[in-house]
């Protein structure tokens, strides 16, 4: 065991939060939080540089006994799939701090502590190789997120926070039962890698599949358990929305990749049609809902439901293109939708309205803002040359190969996406400037630019040259696929 890089990545934000506890003054809090998140990002880049893309094996592993009596270890490690999300989490971490710089003007220190603990826990989820450890990270996130929405959110924050908390808790608790059942059937171990090597009877797999499905579907979120998401997004402060859309929603899909597929391959294959149907439903239904929204944040929130439908579609297509596309689309959605929430936040700080009808002609007063908004809108629409195009194309080709109807639903969803996104952009940026907008809107400043630029870089980088990103996940995805197909075809 060499240098415990992953522990450092997880505990750097914790150290930041600890330092913040003893600090006074809002600016000190902001700068400290920023320094620690940037340091964490640097560690993650170092991790990516040292990452071996030729193997599917877990890397940078660490194992220490934690509760030996129950076989629980503090075990960390990453493969290609987790590496991408560890990096995404750290990237969005710094951007969240920048996005909250002036938007959060009371209890700044406490907010930054919540933000940093959130980041540590999310990183922990992606690095954990022990089910118990995973669950602790997964569930502990409820505390800071509840506070972020409930203390710093908008008008209806209390309702939204409690709804978020209870939905996720109820889902996670069933997951916990699933974990414990898995522990007993899988030879009394919480070791994720050992559990993927178990051959469970199909009956047990089915039960576990649905227990896990409830937990992950709430997080993704899939229709019909999606109703907490618009409330949480609309009420959360900008940074909260970025975290929710950028990382939290990915955890559900990550759960499918890390647990459902490898541990329950037979059930995953057996129920894949059901999952494809649910994904198609989410894509179309989410798109239709987004089309009907006047509130900017709600529009982006509902579009998330649609976009995450693409992700689950790709995963349960259970072929190489579908899986790679689904995973890449998770990353893309984090970048693009994170950016869109950032943009909604920027404009809301200036005008204190999120109603699309109040805007118009922003192009004239804030050209830089609208230019970048165009980039991210086009990316969200999956225009060629942007990141989502690559992901969506892979998902569609995988999806059509798996199921014609689900593939067609996805195409319909893509069309709907073009409709609501172009409609939104047209109403906000083009046309005559609204009275209110002309008076109050400044263009983006340097600090905001610092938050926007990295995201823009990734939109174009993945869009024009996706190879490095696909390289990271390639070996792991291929291994996962072989594993599922060889074990899952037993029935």
């Amino acid at each position, binding site marked *: 065991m060499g240098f415990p890089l992953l522990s450092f990545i997880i505990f750097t934000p914790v150290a930041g939060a600890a330092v913040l506890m003893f600090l006074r003054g809002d600016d000190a809090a902001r700068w400290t939080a920023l320094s620690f998140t940037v340091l964490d990002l640097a560690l993650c880049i170092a991790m990516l540089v040292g990452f071996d893309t030729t193997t599917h094996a877990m890397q940078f592993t660490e194992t220490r006994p934690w509760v030996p009596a*129950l076989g629980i270890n503090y075990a960390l490690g990453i493969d290609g799939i987790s590496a991408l999300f560890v990096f995404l989490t750290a990237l969005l971490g710094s951007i969240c701090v920048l996005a909250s710089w002036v938007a959060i003007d009371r209890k700044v220190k406490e907010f930054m502590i919540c933000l940093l603990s959130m980041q540590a826990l999310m990183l922990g989820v992606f690095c954990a190789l022990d089910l118990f450890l995973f669950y*602790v990270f997964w569930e502990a996130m409820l505390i800071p997120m509840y506070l972020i929405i409930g203390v710093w959110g908008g008008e209806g924050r209390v309702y939204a*926070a*409690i709804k978020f908390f209870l939905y996720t808790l109820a889902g996670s608790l069933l997951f*916990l*039962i699933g974990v414990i*059942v898995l522990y007993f059937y899988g030879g009394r171990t919480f070791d994720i890698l050992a559990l993927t090597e178990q051959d469970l009877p199909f009956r047990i797999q089915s039960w576990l599949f649905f227990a896990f499905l409830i937990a992950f579907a709430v997080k993704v979120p899939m229709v019909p358990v999606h109703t907490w998401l618009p409330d949480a997004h609309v009420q959360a402060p900008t940074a909260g929305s970025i975290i929710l859309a950028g990382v939290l929603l990915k955890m559900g899909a990550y759960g499918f990749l890390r647990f459902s597929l490898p541990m329950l391959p037979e059930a995953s294959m057996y129920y894949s049609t059901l999952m494809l149907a649910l994904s198609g439903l989410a894509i179309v239904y989410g798109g239709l809902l987004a089309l009907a929204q006047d509130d900017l944040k709600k529009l982006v929130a509902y579009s998330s439901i649609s976009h995450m439908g693409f992700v689950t579609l790709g995963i349960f297509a259970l072929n190489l293109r579908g899986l790679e596309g689904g995973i890449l689309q998770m990353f893309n959605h984090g970048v693009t939708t994170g950016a869109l929430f950032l943009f909604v936040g920027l404009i809301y700080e200036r005008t204190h309205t999120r109603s699309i009808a109040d805007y118009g002609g922003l192009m004239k007063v804030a050209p830089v803002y609208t230019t970048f908004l165009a980039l991210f809108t086009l990316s969200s629409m999956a225009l060629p040359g942007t990141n989502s195009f690559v992901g969506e194309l892979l998902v569609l080709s995988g999806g059509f190969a798996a199921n014609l109807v689900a593939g067609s639903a996805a195409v319909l969803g893509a069309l709907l996406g073009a409709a609501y996104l172009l409609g939104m952009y047209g109403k906000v940026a083009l046309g005559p400037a609204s009275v209110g907008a002309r008076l109050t809107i400044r263009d983006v400043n340097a600090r905001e630019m610092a938050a926007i630029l990295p995201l823009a870089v990734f939109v174009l980088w993945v869009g024009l040259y996706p190879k490095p990103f696909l390289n990271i996940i390639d070996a792991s995805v291929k291994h996962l696929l072989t594993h599922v197909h060889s074990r899952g075809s037993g029935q």
Partner: protein
Amino acid sequence: MTATTLFQSALASLPEIVVITGACILLILGQFVRKGQEHFLVWASVAIVLIAALATLMLASEVRPAYAGMFIADRFAVFFKFVFYLATLLTFLLSRKYADIEGIGSSEYYVLLLFALSGMMIMASATDLLSIYVGLELMVICTYVLTGFLRRERRSNEAALKYVILGAVSTGIFLYGVSLVYGLTGTTQLDGMAAAVTGDPLDPGLLLAVVFIVAGLVFKVGAVPFHMWLPDVYEGAPTTITAFMSTGPKAAGFAVILRVFLNPLVAASNVWIIVAVIAVVTMALGSFVALVQDNFKRLLAYSSIAHAGFAIFGVAAGGADGVASVMLYLLIYAFMNLGIFGAVIMMRNGDFSGEVIEDYAGFAKSHPGLALLMLLYLFSLAGIPPTAGFFAKFYVLVALVEHGFVMLAVIAVLLSAVAAYFYIRIVMVIYMREPKRAFAPALTPLVRAALAVTAAGTIGIGLFPSWFLKLAQDSVFGG
């Protein structure tokens, strides 16, 4: 009984002797303590408990049966005794300032707590239905008096009266069960009972006796259908006594339940079905009724019913892991529940009662540190990691699934999702409301110390559960 066996017996019960003798001495000394010198009483009581703890620790190395099979000093008892010491010590620390504010000047307060402690200790060590009865009565009579200690308050008097009457009825039921056992088997010893019935199908009369005994015990832990007294008594009693009752005597009740349930007589029968039903109903009732409470103490009373339900799930699971899960649950519950009660007690200052949940609106704004502590206890009670409350629930669920009760585990977690709502509702009031008035918590060094200990336990066991888990597991088969 020869001198040697008498000496051995006395040695095995040394901690009990220390506490009872100490309490008697303090009862006399208390008459000479002048007003304003009550500090002496607190420190003397703390010293007595510490000496008893030391004696317990010294005797922990081996199993010592004593008093002709009436009493045993084993690791099971040691574990519970330490839970009792913890609950009592923290109650002492929390009581000093509260007693001043409420005008409780008399030394009997501390003495009665010590006697209650000795009753609980006897319960944990009792291996005979009669010695269980002696310990039980010693404990509850003290808590009857303590409940009514705020003599000028009507609520307190009413609570005490209610407690005495219902408690007497439950004792009667328990004794009736004991007499049935004696009539049918000719013995009251737990081991003797088991020996008398091996082989044969269980006599319906014995089953009836067990049901009576269980009913009497279930009353003490506040499980459905014998829970009705609990919210009123918890609300009416001095808050320090409520904190004490919800942890110490409740753990003592569970100690006896486990002793009876470790007994093959019960293990052979199908009593576990009744126990499972009691667990489900208790937890459901506690969780749902707590949702609509406005009074903090009443809410915690219902929450304590719900937690008792969760612990009974561990009893229903049975086996070594089931028993160990209940023990660990009670230890963790003592830390987090005394913590949250400590916070409520600290709010009692001047004309501020701290009993209405609305009183806490905006508490985070004026006292961020204390609010963070309350947040910790509340999330632990709700069972969210990385707090100890999560691990307590987790281990009960492990025991349930291990014995094949997956459906029970699912019911348990769904009900705890309901229960989570009222804990986070308090967090919401603390963090998300604007303060209505200024707070001046009654924070003395003693209260601070109590809060620090409970916080350390709540977060410490959550992060490093290994040692405590092993302790509980080792204590199951200690005797």
